[in-house]
Structures are given as C-alpha cells and as structure tokens.
C-alpha cells in the first residue's frame, strides 16, 4: 500500500516513520530539503522536494498510485486546498488533512474532507484532564 505524506514537520515525519514501520510504501513531500533529516539517517522511502500545490510534482511523487494521502503542512489553507486537489483531481478516497482551526475543520469535514483538528483534540483532552483531577472538597 502506498502512502503520500505532504509536509514533513514533526507530525508528517512521525506519521511517515510509523506507516513505514507498518509496511507501507511511503513518499514524503516537503518544500525544505532539510526536512529529510526528520526521517532519520537512512530513510528507505522516497523524499521529494517541492510544494504540494504543484500538480506536476504530486504526479512525480506518485499521487496517482497512492492509497492514502496525508496533508500536514504548517498552513491550514494550504492543507485544505491540497486535500481537495487530491480528492477531486486525483480521485483519492483516503485523504486526511490536518486543520488547526476547529471552525474550518468542521466546515470542510461537512463537505466530505476527512479533517483532523489537533486543537479540538487538545481542548477535549485538557478539559477531560481537569475534570479527572481529584480536588479535595472544601468542607463547609
């Protein structure tokens, strides 16, 4: 199975390494050549330098054969647009886009883009953690 990861920051690189460990063929795209170092000393997958908005580059990175595309650059709107391009132009069923803004994540999720919103997850987890605190009741 082929996975294409666009944006090789902390999130993208870790997903790439994890999927590779699980047996996926992984290709990573990042604008910055230095991002390759996030994948460790001997990254066995492919690494393509360029911008994910570039359709030719996406083709070159094998998007047409991808079973899953993860869009995790540091720009919400860039992720939204690339996610839709992967879905609509290349017909990829499994496209997951990281969107930090909960409002935009909801809007695009309702329109059929699989969005993951770390902000929302953080809010839920932190709120839950506060609720779980054992605070000694103050006796009246």
């Amino acid at each position, binding site marked *: 199975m082929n996975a294409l990861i666009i944006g090789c920051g902390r999130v993208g690189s870790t997903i790439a390494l994890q999927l590779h460990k699980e047996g996926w063929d992984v290709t990573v795209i990042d604008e910055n050549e230095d991002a390759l170092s996030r994948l460790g000393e001997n990254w066995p997958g492919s690494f393509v330098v360029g911008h994910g*908005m570039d359709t030719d580059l996406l083709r070159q990175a094998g998007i047409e054969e991808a079973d899953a595309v993860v869009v995790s650059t540091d720009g*919400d*709107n*860039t992720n939204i*647009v690339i996610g*839709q391009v992967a879905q609509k132009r290349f017909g990829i069923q499994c496209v997951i886009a990281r969107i930090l803004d909960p*409002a*935009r994540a909801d*809007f695009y999720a309702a329109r059929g883009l699989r969005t993951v919103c770390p902000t929302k997850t953080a809010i839920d987890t932190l709120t839950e953690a506060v609720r779980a605190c054992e605070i000694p009741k103050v006796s009246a």
Partner: protein
Amino acid sequence: MRDPESERLMYVVIAGGGKVGANVARSLLRLGHEVTLIEQRRDRFDRLEDEFEHQVQRGDATELFVLERAGIARPPDIMLALTGDDEDNMVICQLAKERYGVPKVIARVNDPRNQAHFDLLGLAPTICATSSIMALVEHEVPEHDLIHLLELRKENLEIVEVQIDRDSPSAGKRVEGLKLPEGARLISVMRDGRSEIAVGSTMLEAGDQVLAILEPGKEDELRRVLLRR
C-alpha cells in the same frame, strides 16, 4: 418608494489590504458603495485605518469569526478575495459562497499555475495579472499563429485569433470549404484594418486575422485546418 440611487449601491467585503485591495476599496467607496476591508498585517492595518477608519478591520479573513465581524452573514453582494496568497483566496471564496451564500465571489490569482485549482473548486471569475500581461505580450509577437483573446469560463468556450499566412492551406479557400473541427466556428475576418463577419462564402487570404470561438482543447485541430501546424 425605494430610492433608485440606493438600489444601485452594493455591499462589498474585500479580503486583503495590499495595493490591489486598498485601491479597489478606494474606488468602490468613491462610487458610493459600502465596503469593509479586511487586513491581517498590523503595519498595513495601521496605515489603512488612517484612511479607511471603521471601514477596515484587522484579522485573518479565512477565520469565520473575522468574516462574520465584517458582515459576511448579511450577506454582501460581492466578496473579493484579493490577498497575496492563493490558498487563502480559495478558502475565502469557498467559505463566502458555500457557507454564507454570498452571490458573487471574485478571486485574485497570484501564481498562474494555481489557476487550475481555482477551476477545480469551481471558483470563478478569477483575475490573474501575470496571465493578462502574458496574453498582451503574446499579441505583440509578430509571428504569432494562434493566441487566446478571451476565456469564457462559465460557457466553457474561448475566443482565439489566428493569423493566416501564405503557406496556410486555408489561404484562398472559402469558410464553407474548410473542415473545421466539431466545436469550433469562425467569427470574423480582419483584412487591411477592416473586419467582417465570417460566413460560408467568406474567402480567406494570406495576412487575414481570423477570430474563432471554440471549446478549450480544440486549438490544435483548428491550427491544423487553418495553418497545417
């Protein structure tokens, strides 16, 4: 009775207060329209505020609360996405159109390579300074064979100009005798500075400038019939 004067006036929200956005805002205000300009950068916003006062707001126009503060839910008659970032412009247009029902959105394309993405997402009309300049430059090339004059995106048609020369197989033929591709028609023929509508009996000559309307993608077929290239 409604004031006919006020019926001609529109509410326009503009995202992006750079040179383009600010000049468009200024022009619309001069015509009496109601405008809200949104600018994210602090330094730019401060300068714009001196001139536009309450008509400029600071914020990221891809954030829903910023758009709502600018009155997107009224909704405005037109949303103009004029920032220097194409991804932002695409998201602004999608939000305006699909979430808030803004009847008309117009987007600026900064990098002509992104035009295909705007088209894919159904965002039209768009305006790209680079593409407009290139079309004009193309027009000036003395030995041009086929140039694009106008794209009718909604109609999925385009208008091109073709220069007939001595070696063209169409020179000396009538329009009705040409095997024009399906989805292409000749509109007019310009000769010695005078233009006439192309009909079946119109004779093509070397030096003619022919206007044609066609479906995008038929250029090569048309070129072959008229120019054998």
